[in-house]
C-alpha cells in the first residue's frame, strides 16, 4: 500500500476519483481540496496524523427568520389599524372583547396574505395555522394564570387575617362598618375538611380495591365493572347530590349533614380515582408479580407488598388529584350539607354544615359588599387548597429513580387532572405506549 494510494482515495472519498468525469455543472467545484490529513483513515502510516478536534459549531436550522418575524409584526400592526378604523370609526361599536376578536381574525388573515405574497401559499397556510394553534394554547394558559391571580387580587386586599380563620358568619351585621372584623370562613373550612376527609377515608380504599379488582383479578365481572366505572365517572355532580338526597335524606335516614355531603362526594370520587389508580397499576411490570408469585407468596401478599408499593407514587397522585377535584364541588353540597353560617364540627352527622364552595355560592349572590368580599376570600382559600394539592400531586407523579432523582413521567402522567372529569375506559394495549 503506497502512500500515494492512501492519499488518492482516502481523504475525500469519491471526490478524487470522479474529478475527471465530464461534469455538466462545469463549475469547477469538484476540484479536490488540498489533501490535508483530516481523517485517521490510513491504517498504515508510520506516524498517525493527530485528529483535529475542532468541530464546526452546530447550526440551528430555523424555518423562522427575521423576514418572517417582520411579516408577523406588520400583520399585527396593520390589523390593529384596520380594525380600529372599521370597528370604532365606521361602525362605532364598543367592547374590548369584540375588538380583540376582530383584530385577531384580521391578524391571521393578513399574516396569510402577506406570507403568500412574499413567500408562497404553502408556507402561508402553515404559518397561519401555527399562529392559530399557538395562540389557542396561549389563550388558555393566559386565562388560567389570570383567574388564579385575579382571585388573589380580589381577595387579599380585603382580608382581615385576624378574623378570617377564627370567626364564622353568625355575627354578621349589615350596618356594621367594620363587619369584616367580625366574620370569617372558619365554619366553612372546618366543614369542608370534615366532609372531604371522610369522603377520602371511605372512597379511597374502595377505589383502590376496585382498581385492584379490575387489574389483578381476572374474571367474568371485570369487563362489566370497568364499563360501569367508566359510565359513573361521567355522572353529573348534581346527580350525585340529589341521589344521596333522595336515598338518604328524603327517606329520613339522615338529615342535611356533613356526612351526607361526604357520601355525595364519594360518589364523585370513587369512579374517577378508580380509573386513574387502575391506569397506574397497569404499568407495574408483570414480571414483578410473577417474581413474587414464583417465590410462593400468596396473591394478596403480592398485591399488598409488591404491586401497591411499586405504584405508590401514582396512587398518591391519583388521590391528591381526586381530593383537588371534590374539594371544589359545589352542586352536591347544595342538597346534602345545605350550608350553615356557624361552626358546628360536632354536628357533622346530624346538622347542616357550611363548606367553602357553599359560602362562595351563597354569599356572592347577596347584595352586601362585605359578603361579596367574604365570598372572594373563601374563593381564595379554596383556590389555595386546590393549588397546593395540584402541585403536590405533580411532585408525586414522578416516581423516584435509582439515585433518588425523580424520573421522567410517562406520556399520560401530565394531564391526569383532566382525566378525572371524563370517562375513558382503560382497555388500551400497552404496545401503543
Amino acid at each position: 500500500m503506497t502512500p500515494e494510494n492512501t492519499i488518492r482515495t482516502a481523504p475525500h472519498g469519491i471526490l478524487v476519483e470522479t474529478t475527471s468525469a465530464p461534469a455538466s455543472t462545469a463549475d469547477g467545484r469538484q476540484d479536490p481540496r488540498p489533501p490535508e490529513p483530516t481523517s485517521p483513515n490510513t491504517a498504515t502510516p508510520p506516524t498517525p496524523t493527530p485528529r483535529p478536534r475542532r468541530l464546526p459549531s452546530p447550526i440551528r436550522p430555523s424555518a423562522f427568520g427575521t423576514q418572517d418575524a417582520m411579516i408577523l409584526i406588520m400583520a399585527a400592526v396593520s390589523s390593529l389599524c384596520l380594525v380600529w378604523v372599521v370597528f370604532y370609526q365606521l361602525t362605532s361599536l364598543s367592547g374590548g372583547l369584540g375588538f380583540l376578536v376582530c383584530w385577531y381574525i384580521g391578524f391571521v388573515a393578513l399574516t396569510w396574505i402577506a406570507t403568500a405574497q412574499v413567500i408562497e401559499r404553502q408556507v402561508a397556510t402553515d404559518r397561519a395555522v401555527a399562529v392559530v394553534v399557538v395562540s389557542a394554547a396561549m389563550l388558555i394558559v393566559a386565562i388560567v394564570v389570570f383567574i388564579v391571580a385575579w382571585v388573589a387580587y380580589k381577595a387579599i386586599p380585603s382580608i382581615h387575617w385576624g378574623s378570617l380563620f377564627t370567626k364564622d358568619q353568625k355575627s354578621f351585621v349589615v350596618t356594621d362598618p367594620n363587619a369584616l372584623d367580625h366574620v370569617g370562613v372558619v365554619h366553612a373550612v372546618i366543614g369542608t375538611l370534615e366532609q372531604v376527609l371522610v369522603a377520602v377515608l371511605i372512597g379511597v380504599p374502595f377505589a383502590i380495591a376496585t382498581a385492584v379488582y379490575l387489574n389483578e383479578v381476572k374474571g367474568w365481572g371485570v369487563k362489566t365493572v370497568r364499563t360501569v366505572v367508566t359510565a359513573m365517572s361521567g355522572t353529573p355532580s348534581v346527580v350525585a347530590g340529589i341521589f344521596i338526597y333522595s336515598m338518604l335524606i328524603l327517606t329520613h335516614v339522615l338529615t342535611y349533614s356533613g356526612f351526607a355531603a361526604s357520601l355525595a362526594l364519594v360518589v364523585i370520587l370513587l369512579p374517577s380515582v378508580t380509573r386513574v389508580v387502575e391506569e397506574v397499576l397497569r404499568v407495574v411490570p408483570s414480571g414483578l408479580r410473577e417474581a413474587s408469585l414464583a417465590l410462593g407468596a400468596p396473591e394478596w401478599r403480592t398485591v399488598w407488598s409488591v404491586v401497591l408499593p411499586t405504584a405508590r407514587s401514582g396512587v398518591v397522585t391519583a388521590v391528591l388529584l381526586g381530593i383537588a377535584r371534590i374539594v371544589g364541588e359545589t352542586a352536591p353540597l347544595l342538597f346534602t350539607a345545605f350550608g350553615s353560617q356557624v361552626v358546628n364540627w360536632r354536628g357533622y352527622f346530624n346538622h347542616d354544615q357550611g363548606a367553602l364552595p357553599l359560602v362562595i355560592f351563597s354569599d356572592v349572590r347577596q347584595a352586601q359588599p362585605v359578603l361579596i368580599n367574604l365570598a372572594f376570600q373563601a374563593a381564595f382559600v379554596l383556590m389555595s387548597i386546590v393549588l397546593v394539592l395540584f402541585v403536590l400531586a405533580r411532585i408525586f407523579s414522578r416516581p423516584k429513580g435509582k439515585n433518588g432523582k425523580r424520573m421522567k413521567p410517562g406520556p399520560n402522567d401530565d394531564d391526569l387532572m383532566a382525566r378525572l372529569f371524563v370517562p375513558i375506559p382503560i382497555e388500551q394495549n400497552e404496545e401503543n405506549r
Partner: protein
Amino acid sequence: MTTTLSSTSPADADHPTPFTGTPELGQPGQVDAHDVCAWFGGRLVLETVDLVMEKSKVTALIGPSGCGKSTFLRIINRMHEVVPGAQLAGSVKLDGVDIYGPGQRAMETRRHIGMVFQKPNPFPAMTIAENVLAGLKFSRVSPADKDDLIEESLTKGGLWNEVKDRLGELGGALSGGQQQRLCIARSLAVKPRVLLMDEPCSALDPTSTLRIEQTIKEIASEVTVVIVTHNMQQAQRVSDYCAFFLAEENQPGRVIEAGKTGTIFGSPTDQRTFDYVNGQFG
C-alpha cells in the same frame, strides 16, 4: 446553468424563482457534504464527514449498526432536524447550493431530495393513486395529466403491472414489498434530483428485494441515488460508489474509506474496511 434551490435567498429576493416546475426538477443532482457533524442530545454521533455523491450514480453507505449512516442520510434532506434534541454542523450542497444556507426551507429541500424509509410507510387512508400524487399535492402542483404521471411513476417504481387495475384501492392493502415500491414511486412522482434510501429492503423478502434493486438500477440515470444498506452483496450489486462508515468504541461515526465500489470491495486501503467487507465483524 446555475441552479438555485432557494427562492428567497438575499441575492434574488426581488425575483423569487418560482420553485415548482423549474427544469431542475427531474435532473439528477450532485450532493456535496462537507464537514458534517451530528449530535443527539449533546452526544456527538457523526464527525466531520466529507463525501460527494456523484450525479446519476448510486452511492452506497455501508457500515455496522450505529455508525451514523442513517443519520448522515437524514442530514442530506434535512430530516435530521425533525428529531427532538438533534443538532448538526457542516454544509450539504445540492449542485452547489447549501441546503442549510440562510433562507432555505426544509420542505423545499425535501422536494428536491426525496427519501425512502426502512419501513414502508404509504398513507393508509389514501388510495394507491392518491399516494403517488401526495407529494405533488403538498407542493400544490397539479400535473397536466395525472394518469400519465401515475403510470410513469409506478412504472419506474416497478409496480405498475401489479396495480394498474386497482389504483383506487387503499395503499395499506398492498403487500410489504409492494408498499415499499409504492413509496419509491411516490417519491419519484415529485421528480426529485436525489433519492435517499434508508435500508429500503431490510424489511422485505428476497424477491421484493430483487425487484427494488432492479428499480434502483433503472432510475439511476434520472436521479442520483444514495442508499444505506447492511447487505454487502446488495451494495456490490447496485452501487457505483461506496462509503464505509465506522464508529469505533466510544467514538463518533466517521467515514473510514470511500471510493468506487470495486475498489472498496476488491482492494480497500484500510484494514478495517477490508475486515468489514469480508465479514470479519459487523
